[in-house]
Each structure stands twice: as C-alpha cells, then as structure tokens.
C-alpha cells in the first residue's frame, strides 16, 4: 500500500453505507428521492431572435448550475467508485453540482416530449454540429448557431449537463463539480500516469492531457515518481535518470518548480513517447459525472422542474448522443449500470453511441483522466472486455461478460452503435460484433443496431479542402445525413411506433470483415495503404481495479493482444458493406478511414479517380476513371438519385434531406471536373 494512505477496505465502505442507511430512515421520504435539490438559472433568454421553428415554435435557452444530493446507501449509487470516501452533509448525503445548458421550446408542449442530451466531448457541445450542420459553438444563441434548425424543428429539447470534472479552464466549457475522495480528513493518494508525444522539441509539458486540469504531484521527491521514454507503444521503456527531470516548467530560461508540469533538462524530443508515473492526491469522485447525467434526466422525465419551464409530464422520453470520447462515456455509463435511477426507473430510452468504437474509458475510477483517449494516449483504461451486447467469453482470461451485463432488462435502452471507418482502423471496433478472438460474427441485442458509415472518417472533412497537399486531404464523405434519419428512427423506436432500420456492418462470415493482410486495396499511385495499425491489449491495472476502481499497477501490464479486423473494399478501394452514402455508392473517389500521411489519427483520405482514361493510364491508377464510369454529369446525378431514393426507402436518409444530398453530389462532380 501507499504510505500515508489509510487502508480502506470494502468492509469499511459497507460500514459507512450502513451508517448512512440508518440516517436515511430518519429522513423524510420526499427528500430521499430528490437527487436534484436545486437549480440556479443564471441565463434565460430567447434564442435565434425568437424565430419560430415550425410547429415547435420559438426556443429559449436556460443555463446555470444544478445541485445534487445523493444517498450513498442507495443501491443505484453503489456503482460510483469512491462514493464511500465522499464528504457527507448533515443528512448523510453526498453533495455535488454541474453546469447545465438547456435549449427548449418556449412552450414545452409544442415540442416532441423528448429530451435529447448531448454528452459533451471534453466539455464541448456537439449535437448542433452533427445534426443541425451548424458551426460548432459552446454557447449557442443566435440563429446561425443552430444551423439549419433540424433538431428544433423536430421539437427536441436539447440538454447539456457537465459530467467531466477536469475540462480545460475555458469560457463555456461545461463541467461537473465533484468532491475529492477523502479518508480520515486526508485526501486519498494514488498513482497517476501521464504520457505524451511532442511534435517539436519542448522542455516542459503538462501532466494533464490536452490542456485539461492535471493532477498534482503529491511529493516531488517521492521515489516512486518515474519518467521513461520509448519509440513505439509496445517498445521497451527506458528510464530517464531522476536528476535529468523535475516537476517544473521553464520560465525565462530557468526551471521553476510546478507540481502540474514536468521538465526535462535536455528537452523532450519529437515523436518519442514519454511517460511519467507519479504519486498524486486529490482524486475527484469522477463517477458523480455519470450520476449528474442520470439524475438530471430522471428529474425531467419523472419529476417536474418549474424553474426550467418543464412541468410534470411534459418530457416523457430521453435520448442521448455521444461521439468519440463521449461515445465511450455512454458505453461506460451503460456497463456501469447507470441507466437506472435511485427509484429503479429507466433513465435513457435511447442512445446513439457514435464513434465510441469498442471502448469505454477513464470515467469512473480513482484518479481518472477522462480526456485520455486510447490511441493517441497509450494503455489508459478503455479497451477492456466486454465489447458486445451479448455474453462472450474471453478465451485468454476465461471471463464471461457483456456490455449490458449490469443493466436490468427493464432499463435497457434502445441503442444505435454508429462508427466510421476510422474507428475500425484505429481500434478493434469490430469486437462489438465479433467474438473475442475475432473468428465469428456476433449479432447485437434485439434492442440494439450497429451501423458502419462506410468510407468515412471520424468527423467528415470540409469539402473541398483548402490546402493543396493531395495526400493529406481529409475524407469529406458526409455521414451526418444518416445520423439525422437515425435519430428520428430511434425516437420512433422508443415510442414503439416504428421498428428501426436493419443493422449494417461488415461480417467475418461473408468475407466483408477481414484481417489487415486480406485487404484488397487497389494500386493507386503515391498512395500507400497502412500495413500496420495501433493494436489493443488486455491490460492488468492491478488486483483492485475491477473491484474498486483503483489502479495499483502503473504502467499496466500487457497480457494479450486483441484481434484486429477491418472492412473489406471493392476494386475502387471503397468499402463494400455498411451504410454507403450515395456519393460512396456512386463514387468519384476512393474514400478511406485511414490516412498514413496525416499526423491526425482521426483523419481519413479522399483520393479522386482520374478524370478520364488517358489521365488514368498516364498515372498507372488501377481504378476506372470518372469518364469510364459515367457518360455524363446527368447520368452520374441520376445514379446518385437512385441510391439516395433507396436509402430513404430503407429509412437511412430523410426525404427532406434529399435536395441537399443531391446538391452536394453535384458540387462534388463539378469540383472534380472543373477546368
């Protein structure tokens, strides 16, 4: 055990729980269910200048803070790691608060009775960008902030609740305010690991990820503090002698002590992986972020919040959308059993877990670092088994589990798992629909659907790209049209008025999901397909991790590699299976989820076909040219139209989006065929 840290056992935790349970009996019942105890509204005003969004009418925004008190003895809260170490108020409850931002119809009864929660990504709002085609902003207010108004015209109530405690200190980024785990009046200590790669030589670096608020080193002189360097993720770590580095920063050429930064005398070299492990103290109870989300939704659905202009019964469904980190958050939320509130009621009715790949994250354990991703950062909690909805056995560990294993069947939400091609290349995303050794397909639960947006990158690139380096051009294949339709389908599904469109993803069984070596990517001049990918491992964080959320082994030990499968492609290099946008099905280019020429792992590639046969032959491009594929722009346009009509019929696109989809296809042709 760590010195100075009191030994806290599961028994101790139980004792605390029992004490609180006794207190609880003495309290009134009404308080017992009041997880949201106060809402401070700091801003309330009209958005979009009072513009009316169709039948939903004008919208308003409310922003401020929500205050919570939860009962640590309630069984719904037993999944919150370290809750037993939270300070209690006089009623024996744990207090915390979170920022909120609400965009709702001024007359809530004009809306669609559905609250749509944006699981923000590192404190940033996302859904207006994905669903309304808006330019991202963190305080949406004016008409442009709401893009084409899609979600508003549909009558959704948009909700944002801060869930991450360490988002960068920046205006409009939203956070949860969680107490620090404390035992015997001391904050608990533990190991924290911080790895980083710099793009140019630097002398000091934050201990946190990407401007997030770092954990502080408890005692710079602690002998357990180490710094290593290596050249590849799986390479051997080389210890850097302790005298060459400090907890500090360079200021005016001098090293100044800084408990949140690390300084290397010779400087950090570009493209090498540095990793500091240090003893820290002051671990906020990260899992309260999940509880904040849970309890806010529960209140809107089952209670009434007059201060938000939402009377009882006005909201009766809740959907959530999370992308990337936020998608992993939702997988974590599910797996940790948060879709049930203190009253055992279902919280979310539907989830769109977008680009969450096969992973969870660092969201509900001691000394969690929620921002740490699982590819640019290495070996943080994320790629843990289980991956699929249905029960699987990990052949290496022998453990049997499923992502929904901790969810009571009555509270299982309807789930859409949506991923881009990038997720299949960055992570073993295929594990969400294969067995653990990657040899067999495994269907999702009846309550879930899985969609691959074929030939897309993590977030669609602008089109056309402004810079000229052809090899680095990002992939503009715009899958957000699919998301719009899928959201409405999900909402209908939760209302039992419609069944959702069929899953669309590549499979081992029909050869559309293959090992890297089996990929039949065509020969394209100057384009090198990736021959290796960043692999995911089973990791051992120490014996207390699974049971208590405590990492005792840093760095963790690698105990086996997960299989890695990618979507097979056709002769033009485009993926065969999944949701193929009209522009992919009637292609003018190869669209990939990978881009070895880009330093950004979430970028894909856009590699146009040659214009005509002459140009193609001159460049030895194996792919048929545009001129060989299509007789005219109109014919191309007609083929795109046919594809789009089919996708509408199948429920994957919306009729109302057809004009914009076709216009974009026309612009694409004009761009490539311009003089």
């Amino acid at each position, binding site marked *: 055990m760590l010195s100075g840290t009191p030994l806290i056992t599961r028994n101790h935790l139980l004792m605390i729980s029992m004490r609180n349970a006794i207190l609880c009996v003495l309290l009134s019942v009404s308080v017992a269910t009041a997880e949201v105890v106060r809402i401070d509204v700091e801003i309330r005003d009209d958005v979009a200048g009072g513009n*009316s969004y*169709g*039948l*939903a009418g004008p919208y308003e925004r409310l922003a401020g803070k929500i205050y919570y008190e939860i009962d640590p003895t309630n069984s719904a809260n037993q999944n919150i790691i370290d809750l037993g170490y939270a300070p209690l108020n006089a009623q024996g409850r744990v207090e915390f608060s979170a920022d909120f931002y609400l965009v709702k119809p001024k*007359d809530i*009864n*004009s*809306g*669609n009775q559905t609250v749509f929660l944006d699981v923000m990504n590192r404190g940033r709002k996302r859904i207006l960008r994905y669903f309304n085609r808006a330019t991202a902003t963190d305080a949406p207010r004016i008409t442009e902030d709401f893009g084409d108004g899609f979600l508003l015209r*549909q*009558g959704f109530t948009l909700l944002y609740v801060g869930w991450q405690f360490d988002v960068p200190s920046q205006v409009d980024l939203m956070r949860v305010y969680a107490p620090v785990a404390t035992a015997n009046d001391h904050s608990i200590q533990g190991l924290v690991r911080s790895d980083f790669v710099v793009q140019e030589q630097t002398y000091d670096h934050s201990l946190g990820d990407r401007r997030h608020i770092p954990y502080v080193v408890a005692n710079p002189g602690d002998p357990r503090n180490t710094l290593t360097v290596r050249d590849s993720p799986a390479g051997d770590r080389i210890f850097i002698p302790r005298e060459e580095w400090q907890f500090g920063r360079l200021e005016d050429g001098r090293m100044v002590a800084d408990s949140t930064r690390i300084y290397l005398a010779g400087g950090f070299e570009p493209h090498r992986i540095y990793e500091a492990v240090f003893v820290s103290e002051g671990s906020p109870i990260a899992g309260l972020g999940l509880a904040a989300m849970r309890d806010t939704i529960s209140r809107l659905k089952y209670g009434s919040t007059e201060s938000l202009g939402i009377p009882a019964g006005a909201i009766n469904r809740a959907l959530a959308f999370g992308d990337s980190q936020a998608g992993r958050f939702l997988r974590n939320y599910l797996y940790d059993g948060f879709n049930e509130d203190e009253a055992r009621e279902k919280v979310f009715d539907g989830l769109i877990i977008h680009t969450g790949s096969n992973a969870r994250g660092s969201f509900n354990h001691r000394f969690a670092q929620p921002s740490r991703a699982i590819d640019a950062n290495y070996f943080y909690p994320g790629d843990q088994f289980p991956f699929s909805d249905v029960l699987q056995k990990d052949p290496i560990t022998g453990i049997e589990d499923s992502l929904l294993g901790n969810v009571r069947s009555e509270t299982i939400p309807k789930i859409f798992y949506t991923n881009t091609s990038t997720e299949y290349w960055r992570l073993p995303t295929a594990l969400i629909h294969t067995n653990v050794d990657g040899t067999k397909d495994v269907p999702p639960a009846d309550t879930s659907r899985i969609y691959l947006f074929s030939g897309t990158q993590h977030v669609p690139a602008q089109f056309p790209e402004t810079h000229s380096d052809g090899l680095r051009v990002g992939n503009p294949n715009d899958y957000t049209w699919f998301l719009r339709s899928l959201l409405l389908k999900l909402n209908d599904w939760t209302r039992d*008025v419609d069944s959702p469109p069929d899953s669309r993803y590549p499979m081992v069984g029909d050869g559309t999901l293959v090992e890297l070596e089996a990929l039949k990517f065509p020969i394209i001049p100057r384009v090198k397909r990736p021959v290796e990918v960043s692999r995911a491992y089973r990791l051992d964080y120490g014996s207390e991790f699974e049971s208590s959320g405590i990492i005792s082994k840093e760095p963790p030990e690698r105990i086996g590699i997960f299989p890695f499968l990618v979507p097979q492609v056709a002769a033009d290099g485009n993926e065969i299976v999944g949701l193929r946008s009209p522009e992919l099905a009637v292609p003018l280019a190869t669209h990939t989820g990978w881009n070895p020429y880009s330093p950004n792992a979430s970028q894909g590639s856009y590699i146009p076909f040659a214009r005509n046969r002459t140009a193609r032959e001159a460049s030895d491009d194996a792919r048929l040219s545009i001129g060989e594929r299509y*007789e*005219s*722009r*109109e*014919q*191309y*346009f*007609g*083929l*795109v*139209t*046919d594809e789009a*009509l089919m996708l*509408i019929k199948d429920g994957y696109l919306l*009729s*109302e*989006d*057809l*004009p*914009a989809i*076709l*216009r974009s296809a*026309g612009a694409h042709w004009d761009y490539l065929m311009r003089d």
Partner: protein
Amino acid sequence: MKITMRIPSLVFLMTSMASAEMVGVDIDIHEDVLGGKSWGLSGPYEKMIGTMYFEVDPSNSANEIIVDIEHAPTNAQGNVEFSANFVLIKPKQVERGNGTVVLGVANRGTRRMLTFFNHGHDEHGEWDAVNPTAEEHFGDGFLMEQGFTLLWVGWQFDVPLSRPHGSRVFVPRVDPDEPIEGLVRSDFVVREKIFDRTLADRNHVPYPVSDPDAPESVLTVRDDVEDERQVIPRDQWDFARLENIDSQEGIGEVVPDQTRVYLESGFEPHRIYEVIYKAENPEVIGLGLAALRDAVSAFKYGSSDDLNIPPGSINHGIGYGMSQPGRTLRTLIYMGFNEDEQHRKAFDGIIAQIGGAARGSFNLRFGQASRDAHPFLNFFYPTDIFPFTDVEQTDPVTGVTGGMLSHVPEEFMPKVYNVNSSYEYWGRVSSLLTTTVDGEQDAPMLDEHARVYHFAGAQHLPAEFPPTQTNGQNLNNPNDFSWFMRALLVRMNEWVVEGTPAPPSRYPLILDETLVVPEEVNFPNIPNINFPTKTHKAYRVDYGPRFVSEGVITKEPPEIGPAFPILVPQVNEDGNELGGLRTPGLVVPLATYTGWNLYNTEYGPTDTASHMSGSFIPFYATKVEREAQGDPRLSLEERYENRDHYLGLVAAEAIQLIEEGYLLDQDLREILEQAGVIWDSIDN
C-alpha cells in the same frame, strides 16, 4: 324535394362561439382520427361531423350584400337563421397545430383536401371519403403534419341528393307577402337519346317550375353555341317525366313533374337544348357565402368548448377552393364577404385553384351554383364575367370599370392566389386573369397581395398514372401539379402568418410571347393528333338592368355581346408550354402534355375541346419508331443517354424549383419516383 331546415334547440345553442354570428353546433360524430395516431409535432387529430347554426342581422351592412336577405324570414330577434353541415379535422390539442384553419370550400358537396393535398384515396369515389376513417383516406398526412386545422362548411344548398353526406347549407326561402317570381334557364347536352331530364345541372336540386302550363315557358334546340335557337313547339314537350319506359321506343307513362322536362321525340345526343321557365320564392343562396365567412371568423375570433377550440388557438384562416369553389372564393372576395358583421377580416388567405378568371352564380336570385362554363357544357351563365384582373380595368367595349381586388379595403384584404392549369386557358379563358381586357397587353399585378401561378402543360386536375382516355381523343394528362400546391399552401401560410411573401407569380406573358392567340401556337404536327381549332369563348353578356345592382336576372336567354379576346400559352417544338410553373417532368419531358383534348365521338363535337381534360402524348422510345410514324418530336433515345441521365436531369430541375420555393424538400423523393415510373412505362 325541398330540404327542410333543421330547427335548432335554442337553449343549447347560445353557449358557444359567442362572439361570432355562428351561434351553435350540433355534433353527430366525434372521434379520434385513426385511433389517436400521432402526426409529428401536431400530435393526434380528432374529427367532428355535425351542423353549425348561424344567425345574421339583415340590417348589418356586412349582410346587405346578400341578395334577397330583406325577404328572408327572421326570428324574434329580427335575425335570419340558417345552418350548414360541417366536417372538422383538427389537432386534439389545437395549440399543437399551426394556428391556421384551412376552410375547404366543397365542390358540389364533395370535399377534396385530403385527396388532393394528402394524396388520400377513398374506395367509393375520387374525392375525400364522406366520413374519413381509414388510413388511406388520410393519405400521407401532409396537412396534419403541417398542423393545419381542416374545416369544411356547407355553402351550397342544392347539392345533389345523391350526396346525402355532401357539404350543404340549409338556407330559408324568401318569404315575401307577394311571391317573388323569376326566370330560370336550364341548358343541357345529352350523350345518348333520352326522353326526360332534370331542370338542374348534374343532378342538383332544381328550381321547380311554378306554373307548368304557363305559356311563356320555352324549349329551344341548336347545334352549336352561337347558332340560332330553334323553338320546339310547346305541344311536343312538357314539365314531366317518363315512367315505366321502354327505353328504345320511348314508350312509357308521362307523369307531370315540376322539376323535369320531357320531349316527346326524345332529346338527341350532342345538341344543345335550353328550357326557360318561371319559378318562385327562391332560397337565399348568398347565405352560403355568409356561412363560410362566419365560420372562419368564429374560429379565428371566438372559441368553442363544443369544438374543443380555446380562445386564441386559431389565428389565421385560409380559404381553399378547387374549380367551382375557386370561383366561389373569387366571388366571396369580390362581393365584400371578407368583412364580417363585426367588421373584421374573415379570410387571411384565399387559394382559388383552377377557377379561371371567373366567378359564379353564388349570390343571385335563382342562382344555380353548379352552372359553370365549358366549351360544350353550360352556356352563358354568369361565370366568365367582368372584372377578371385583380387591378382595376375598363372594358373598352362596355365602358365598365372594375377590378377583382382593387375595391377591397386594406383591412379586409386577404392574400390571394389564383392558380390555374393550361386547361383553364383553353377551356376557361384564363388569360383574362392577367391581360388587359382588349388582350393586347399584360395587366399589372397586385404583387403586395396577390399571386398568379400557371401550371404549364396541365389539365384541370392531374390524371392518375397510367392515364386513361375518357371524354377526349387522347389519353388524359397526368402532369401532377399537386406537388406545387403543397408547397404553395405552405408558402401561403408563411405569408399570412409571418409576412414572408410567397414566391413570385409565374404565368405566360404577352410581352415575351409565351402567351399568344391560338392561331399562333406552334404546335408540332404529330401524327393522329388534332390540334383544337375552336377554343372556349367568353362573351360580354347582358342579363338585364338589375343584374349587377340587385343580383336579379331579367333577361333569359341573356343577350350576347362581343367575345373577349382569348390567349393561350405558346409551346416549344415538343408541344410543351414555355411559360408558367413547369413541373420537372415537363421541363425534362417524356411526352407532350397539353391542357386541351378534343371530344371523342361519344362525348361531343370532335373539333371542340373536351371539358376538363388535357392530353398526354408520349414520345417514341427510339428514333426508328418515331421516323416510321412520322413524329417530328425527338424520341427518348435521342434525348437521353439512359434512365439515369433522364433522372439526373429531372432531379436537377426539381432542386431548382425547391430553391425557388415552388416545391418542398420533403416531396422531392416522390417526385423523382413518379418520374422514374413514367420513364419505365414509356421505355418498355
């Protein structure tokens, strides 16, 4: 024969719609639409069918325009009572709707918004189900998803009795000390020889002859509209019907009947018969227009617990009428019915669809509301009557000055669409809507309040695809302009609610030679297709000195003056029209689409444009076929590389129209699917 007015139970009545002249309702049917199915944000709808009761004060200036109201019976309060049946389809929580009531003006009793806007179907007929209950009756739910409250209120008293559930108004007859007498004229053309015939148009309730033996009753016959009438000797015909007939021989029992005319030798097909007779004490038919006015005012300014309409929940009213009801709405506005008894604006928007440049017999003594004016059906009734344009003009022949909207005070001025198909140019002198009376120039438009849209290459109402042949020599015209109407209805609502002007008018112009005299139309020489040599004409007609001032016709038959100049849309080398709103399928054509057809031998003279139908004349698929047939129009393969090429062109055109506001985003899919279906049918 006479429909008796329902006597309302007075105590019950006075409860609802207190502020309006609508004094009460009886509800016979009240049920959820489709079991409470939810229509997007509008939520579930409910349907009510019943009767509305009205009372109007004959001395109120807003009612003085009602012809013969001074002769109507009054109740103890001195008010004239009448009632109308209604159908109401509204969001159960009306606040969830869009706050606009669309009042559908029924056509001869038939309601049409569900079939036309929603593409609904009723197995019993081509129009809305009389009591819509099935999924297919509501079509794709377009109007519901938009949140409209739909209301139909009867306005025509003489709807055929064969339509017992048709929209109908129940109005009193005049009740003067001395009977009011007047002339009634009834003309008709039969398709096969018959011996007796109703005095009314198309099975409507006729005005009975007051004295069957009166010597001044006259029956004439002629072969062409402008031919001289030949009087049929009085002893050869009678007001009677034939019973127990042997139809071949015309032998049967002649039974006196004040509502029918009988000819001993039988009426010959394709000849124009005309009977003129006296009737007495007519219904006060103008109360039908007051019913429309007061119903929409009651919805906008009142409230009704019975109809589940809280105050302030309906703020705008749009009147929609197709064909005859389009003329009804033009008449309503022209005569000043958009001002209610409390001097408020009744309709905020008026959509007069395929009503031509015309009005009708809707507020006249002995008015026959069903009588219209077609090339070979219903002649010289007060239909195509001056003025025609929204702005004021002077008829150089009569010297009379007037405009359709120019005299409407600003506070009662609605936004107005006049929307017509090509048929109205060929069969309904629609060009008068946009030209000077002499036909020499384009007339100015009242852009602030009004729009004129022409659906190029379309017939009165689009035919189903694949089209059939009915009264014409060619297949009927399936050019489907209902997609335009869906968008234009939404645009009208935006105009009246938000003040966003509707997209610009689109119609053929004299200025750019897209509107020309019929002789100048460059129609291609297509084998076996006859181009019409005669178009429908409209004349300056004199109905006697009391017509304009009092609504009383004293001259029957009326005196016919010079015809108005008639212009029609110019066409391109395919025979397709150049001006107006052109559907993607017309711009990227697979056929020639015309607003005219010519009667086939069964229906009328084969040189005359047939009523309400246009033509669909497909191109040949291949050059070989076309050349073998001598068709000058390029074949499909000469125009399009393949189906995809064609579809791409259609899509591009449709997107353009969406951007301009004439089509809706959400409809593009079906528009393109329809285009694909037409291609497949011709290419095979």
